[in-house]
């Protein structure tokens, strides 16, 4: 059987609220990392976001691209993905994917993310958001923190971490 190259490293499913979720002691044996997240938070209406912090530190810079069904826009986001907030229909979660390439390198790390956040109505957070974000770290990424810009993730939010190996 071939050696697995797309491996589930860790999984967190919240049973209560949490302001952030950490993945610690990430093995340095993969080439890239992928986080798949299904998220909802307890904040009210507004532009809530989530951010992935490499080694639990803020990234340096990000470009965002958004479409909400009526317009497209671009911003220098302080965050990355969007999140379903408490005004959304019950049991509705946003879906996000964060791809971090060459995380063991000791050069700046680029993360590409896409979030879809649909609620059968137009709000400030619904639609599609894509981001490119870079850190200024010169060390390998050994931990990740997925945090809210405001509020806490609610029960049922899910975070899966995968490792991808190129050989």
């Amino acid at each position, binding site marked *: *059987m*071939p*050696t*697995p*190259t*797309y491996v589930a490293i860790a999984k967190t499913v919240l049973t209560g609220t949490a302001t952030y979720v950490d993945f610690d002691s990430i093995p340095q044996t993969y*080439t*890239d990392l992928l986080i798949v997240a299904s998220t909802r938070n307890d904040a009210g209406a507004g532009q809530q976001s989530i951010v992935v912090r490499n080694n639990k530190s803020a990234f*340096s*810079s*990000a*470009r*965002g*691209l*958004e*479409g909400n069904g009526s317009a*497209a*826009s*671009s*911003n*220098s986001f302080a965050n990355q993905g969007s999140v379903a907030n408490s005004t959304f229909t019950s049991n509705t979660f946003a879906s996000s994917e964060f*791809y971090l*390439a*060459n995380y063991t*390198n000791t*050069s*700046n*790390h*680029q*993360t*590409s993310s*896409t979030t879809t956040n649909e609620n059968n109505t137009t709000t400030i957070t619904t639609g599609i958001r*894509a*981001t*490119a*974000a*870079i850190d*200024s770290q010169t060390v390998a990424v050994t931990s990740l923190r997925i945090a809210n810009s405001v509020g806490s993730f609610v029960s049922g939010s899910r975070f899966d971490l995968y490792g*991808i*190996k*190129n*050989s």
Partner: protein
Amino acid sequence: MAAGATYEPIATTTLSGASTWTFSSIPGTYTDLIAIVVVTSTTGNSFHWRFNGDTGNSYSYTVLEGNGSAASSARSSSDTNINIYSGVGTANPSMFRTHIMSYAGSTNKTVLSEAANDKNGSGIVNRLVGLWRNTSAITSITGTTFAGTLTGTATLYGIKAA
């Protein structure tokens, strides 16, 4: 019976001042292909994809991108390649993920691509859809810079449906 691996590396190339590279002899045993390219450029220019060495006007693409202050969209028809469009960082590595659907099938080939090219204060994020109007199975993929050279890694993965 345990399932076999469904996401496998086919080839990895280390680029060191390269202006072109090719993934060749791609087996037709997967469902889709994904190329991951993480590179810096000597000039900041983009690179493009071609399939099976085809240099004809067989390609088209539409891109949606943002630079941190404005969103825009562009397209090209009957082009000679699929331009990943965002440029490449000169100091910071840029990342590109290109998904090629049903590459071994007998339909024209569709590509979805994403670019993460934040340059720490400027840069581009984009999403792109491309088409190669050819019904042949893809057996080779070539990346080529528009100018300058690239340094970094390029990996091709195969994805198998159940």
